[in-house]
């Protein structure tokens, strides 16, 4: 599904290399987790894949189902099936959440040559999915993320994911700022989307999210590279011993 080879990325503004040769393959139907200390490049990887400005790819490649991602505009990547659940979802005053969702869904359908959803059909679908995530009508009416609590913002990300039905979902520290109940709700939302045709890349600092979203593969990222790959037990090792042992071992 997602294939990253020898990806090197630096910040455009300053001459600072952040990713120093990332190799990663995520297969359809699988959940991969990336863990790693602060500053290891986890969030940069998610931003580069989704097409945010400010990064320069100096070497390597990234492809989604064989299609080169790096040459595409952010909206084209989205239409190709990539979705990033933001660590800090952006507030957009003046744009209603429902309008935003419908515009996004229909823009992607249009880009893929599909027919746009009618207002009635859209409403039916969004209500059902919102209900599962305990998102009430008021939250759907309010401007995008404005005045939302941390948990509401993350649930809103998952609602967008559910509506857009992407093939490749990247969750960037979706557990940050969540209490246990909110994390369970978010994890249930993610698990409901697990499917043979869909892959997940879950970026997190902590093992606890992985208790709820069980990964198939766990990667440890440090200093711009994947330094170790293993099964779910690797996450437990981090939880118990921190990163120091692993980093010492691969150094």
């Amino acid at each position, binding site marked *: 599904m997602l294939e990253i080879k020898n990806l090197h990325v630096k910040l455009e503004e300053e001459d600072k290399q952040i990713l120093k040769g990332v190799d990663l393959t995520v297969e359809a139907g699988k959940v991969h987790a990336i863990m790693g200390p602060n500053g290891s490049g986890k969030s940069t990887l998610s931003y580069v894949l*989704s*097409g*945010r*400005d400010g990064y320069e790819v100096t070497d390597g490649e990234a492809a989604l189902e064989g299609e080169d991602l790096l040459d595409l*505009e*952010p*909206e084209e*990547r*989205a*239409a190709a099936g990539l*979705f*990033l659940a*933001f660590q800090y*979802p*952006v*507030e*957009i*005053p*003046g*744009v209603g959440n429902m309008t*935003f969702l419908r*515009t*996004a*869904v229909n*823009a*992607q359908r249009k*880009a893929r040559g599909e027919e746009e959803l009618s207002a009635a059909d859209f409403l039916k679908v969004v209500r059902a999915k919102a209900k599962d995530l305990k998102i009430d009508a008021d939250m759907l009416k309010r*401007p995008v993320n404005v005045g939302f609590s941390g948990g509401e913002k993350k649930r809103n990300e998952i609602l*967008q994911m559910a509506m*857009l039905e992407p093939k490749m979902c990247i969750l960037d520290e979706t557990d940050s700022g969540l209490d246990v109940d909110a994390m369970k709700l978010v994890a249930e939302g993610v698990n409901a989307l697990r499917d043979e045709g869909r892959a997940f890349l879950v970026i997190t600092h902590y093992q606890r999210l992985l208790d709820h979203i069980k990964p198939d593969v766990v990667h440890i990222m440090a200093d711009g590279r994947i330094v170790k790959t293993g099964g779910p037990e690797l996450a437990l090792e981090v939880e118990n011993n921190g990163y120091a042992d692993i980093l010492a071992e691969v150094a």
Partner: protein
Amino acid sequence: MALPQVKQDATDARLAALGEVTATGWSAKVRADALARVRQMGLPGARDEYWKYTNPARLTSVEPQAASLFETDESPVFGTVDRLRIIFVDGVFDADASDDLSLEGIEISRLAEAQAADIHWAKDVYGVLEANGQTPVERPLAALNTAFATDGVLIRVTGKVSKPVALSYVHANTQSDAILHHVVKVEEGGELTLLENGPAAARFNKVLEVEVADRAAFHHVRAQGRDHERQAVTHIFARLGEESLFKSFTLTANGVMTRNEAVIELTGDDASAHIAGACVGDGDFHHDDTVFITHDAERCESRQVFKKVLRNGATGVFQGKILVKEGAQKTDGYQISQSLLLDDDSQFLAKPELEIYADDVACSHGSTSGAIDEEGLFYLRSRGVPKDDATDMLTLAFLAEALDEIADEALAEEILDRMAGWLVRHRA
């Protein structure tokens, strides 16, 4: 005090070109007095403090600059709204194109014909609110209008009017120089929605005087025409009675020179005045909103909300003042002026002012200038919304607070559609 020579010469030249004030009947004296005011004040010049950001030369010159006509196959604005239409072509009332002027709860007469008749109520308003609005800041172009207006309507509202009255201005002659003066009086308990649309002329000087009596309501929605080359100066003078409501919204798209002034006086307790404007300009667009609100009664509320979207070197100006007189306790005043600059070439010049002589008031004002929020733009694009659409969404969201000042949803929707259409046509 003698006027500076440059100003004296410019004023003399313009007045000579306009010729004699030719009114008969009750308006003769009012017009003569207005002419005396113009002579005493002189027409505005580029050195005047009140015209620091907007050069008035094109509004005061002897002849207007020619303005080519705007051709469009779009449906006219407010076309879907059931309304009483009053049409002016290059500043002249067109009876054939207009609807029958009779409607329950309202009396409409044509200024050009009404001057000879004895219309008591109009005598208390025509030129009176304008004259009153000449202090503390002089507005010579409004006095010039009172003296020389060739047409306009006098509207008296005695009840709740069943549909809006729409003044539609057609521009047909590339050299036209129109001076229109309308007077509205909404009597106690009455309610009127007044619509205005169209560019009117190559050069347009318009005054609207509005007396809103106790417990009356006046709604005003205006879409200034898209003729890019037209030059316009407009004034609204409003006086508000007890528990009355005044709401005015203006959309301006295109125009090399537009100066919209509003002078609003809250004279009755518990009155409310909201004035808002949204403008979108591309290239050699110059738009000036100049507002002066005086609180002279207790517990009144006023709101000024002005939003400007500027690109390719367009200029936006805002001068807004709230004056709270002694004794105007519990005043609630709010003023915001914001610009969205879509590139580095455009500019926004703002002069917000508060002057307060009462000690128990809440007044706030703010003015900002900014670019499109890159974070928001990326967020929308990452969800699949193409860049141009995402930019338009954020731009319309920026304008939304001004649009919220239109009470009628259908009218607000109509204005929103026009703004969205403009944005699509003026993409980078």
